[in-house]
């Protein structure tokens, strides 16, 4: 488990992070041509306790870095950018009913969407390992004085 300032980045996941794009997501390769996408714990901490989750519809083709879902807390609303161009295969009904799962279990039950990438070969190079992500996020976490909840 990679850790930056108390914020965790599980080793078995890939990541896409870019502060300028508000992109702070993890990816799990499901082994069947699809990936599960979620928010890293840092992003959930910044957004605050979520009250609403609105994903793009199943079947939508979403470009890289375009909005995959909109998440809202009482004081913040913003996109979860899509890390890989692809088709939305499944959205998370449990998260729709209980949005704060993204805060309480960001790497598990709080997943955002499952996608089938359509340009993986060209875009795979933008993905990072857990260690790379922890290093990349450290300055951001320091700057924003982020405190990730204890899992």
């Amino acid at each position: 488990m990679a850790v930056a300032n108390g914020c965790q980045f599980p080793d078995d996941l890939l990541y896409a992070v870019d502060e300028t794009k508000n992109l702070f997501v993890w990816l799990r390769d499901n082994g069947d041509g699809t990936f599960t996408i979620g928010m890293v714990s840092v992003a959930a901490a910044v957004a605050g306790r979520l009250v609403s989750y609105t994903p793009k519809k199943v079947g939508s083709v979403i470009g890289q870095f375009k909005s995959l879902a909109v998440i809202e807390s009482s004081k913040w609303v913003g996109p979860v950018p899509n890390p890989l161009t692809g088709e939305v295969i499944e959205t998370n009904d449990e998260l729709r009913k209980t949005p704060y799962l993204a805060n309480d279990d960001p790497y598990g039950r709080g997943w955002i969407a499952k996608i089938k990438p359509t340009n993986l070969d060209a875009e795979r190079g933008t993905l990072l390992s857990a260690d790379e992500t922890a290093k990349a996020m450290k300055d951001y976490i320091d700057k924003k004085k982020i405190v990730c909840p204890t899992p």
Partner: protein
Amino acid sequence: MNGPTKILYVQTSGAEAPERSATVFFLSTAAAAMDIEVGIYFTQFGPTLLKKGVAEQLRIKKGSVGETLRHFIDQALDVGVKFYVCQPSLDLNDIKMEDLIDGVEMIGGAAFNDMALEAERVICF
């Protein structure tokens, strides 16, 4: 993406009605987060929300210690929501362009109508 790609919001109330001030910024931010192209046209009392120094002091709920209106304005600007005002409304409120925060564009009535015709939806507050 599926569905509408442009929404135009119209904000007519201003600093005299704080409880009506945040909605347009929150909803337009949500729309922009959906990759919808969004503009807000501030008319009648709307431009008073954009006057320098006003939003920082405006609390949406009376007696609340939560975020000021400035937080919601900054969110909207950060995700690319466009802000527009009209000259007659500035005159109505004795405001000049230089009295407004950065990031506001002046447009005329014809330009507003063009925007309304181009937008898939127009939502008024």
